[in-house]
């Protein structure tokens, strides 16, 4: 089994707010992230796939295919968007880095044909990242 990781970057804005909380609760729990106008990050996405190395090609996965899938399914969808307002999945789900990693996993999982998705890592900043391994 060999693991292959491909990076990509996108920039997006988000705001943290749960309408079931009072304004005071939202402010206490989410702090500055509760600003309704949003704020942005340069996200770095790391996608790790795993599989056996193909005897003929020497590949775990065709990197060009993986790159194209990541671009089409994730980067083109999320890049330069206000996640809360423009991405349907985040209408009722807060676009925290945790939920973003889970959302990206769902976008990629069914599209990968030749290799198995192992990990989605989303860096919100260089000092903060979330890993999702598809666990319930």
């Amino acid at each position, binding site marked *: 089994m060999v693991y292959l990781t491909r990076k990509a970057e996108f920039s997006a804005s988000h705001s943290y707010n749960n309408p079931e909380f009072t304004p005071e609760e939202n402010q206490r729990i989410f702090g500055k992230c509760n600003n309704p106008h949003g704020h942005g990050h340069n996200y770095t996405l790391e996608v790790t796939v795993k599989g056996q190395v193909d005897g003929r090609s020497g590949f775990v996965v065709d990197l060009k295919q993986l790159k194209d899938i990541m671009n089409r399914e994730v980067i083109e969808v999320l890049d330069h968007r206000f996640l809360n307002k423009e991405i349907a999945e985040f209408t009722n789900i807060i676009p925290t880095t945790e*939920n973003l990693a889970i959302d990206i996993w769902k976008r990629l999982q069914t599209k990968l044909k030749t290799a198995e998705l192992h990990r989605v890592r989303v860096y919100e900043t260089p000092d903060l990242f979330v890993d*999702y*391994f598809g*666990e319930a």
Partner: protein
Amino acid sequence: MKAYLTRRYWFSASHRLHCADMTEAENKEAYGKCNNPHGHGHNYAVEVTVAGQVDARTGMVCNLADLDRFVHEKIVQRFDLENLNTLSEFQQVVPTTENLCMELYGILENGFTHAQVEKVRVEETMLNSFEYAGGREARH
């Protein structure tokens, strides 16, 4: 759904690697330049990974403000700009980064209650790092 949240912190400290049970020659052999009696320092980077179900109401494994507060109070303020050899934690054990990593894991495991502590990773320099997951296999 279970996710893993990792946050990086920094502190600077000095240490000397020296084992009282070894002879002078053995210490020199084992620790080389790190045995310098005056000590030397590092900018340590500490990566703390916590795990848990993503809370459906907050979208979080745990509130980052709680993790930041705990690490600043219990780790950064404790170790930043200190000589590790002078601290009570390292009177019986050599302050290698292996032992530092296990010590930091213990502080988190025993005191941080907002999420499960999965792993601590300590970079001593940009070229070497150490991970401890409480004796479990570290998840990558």
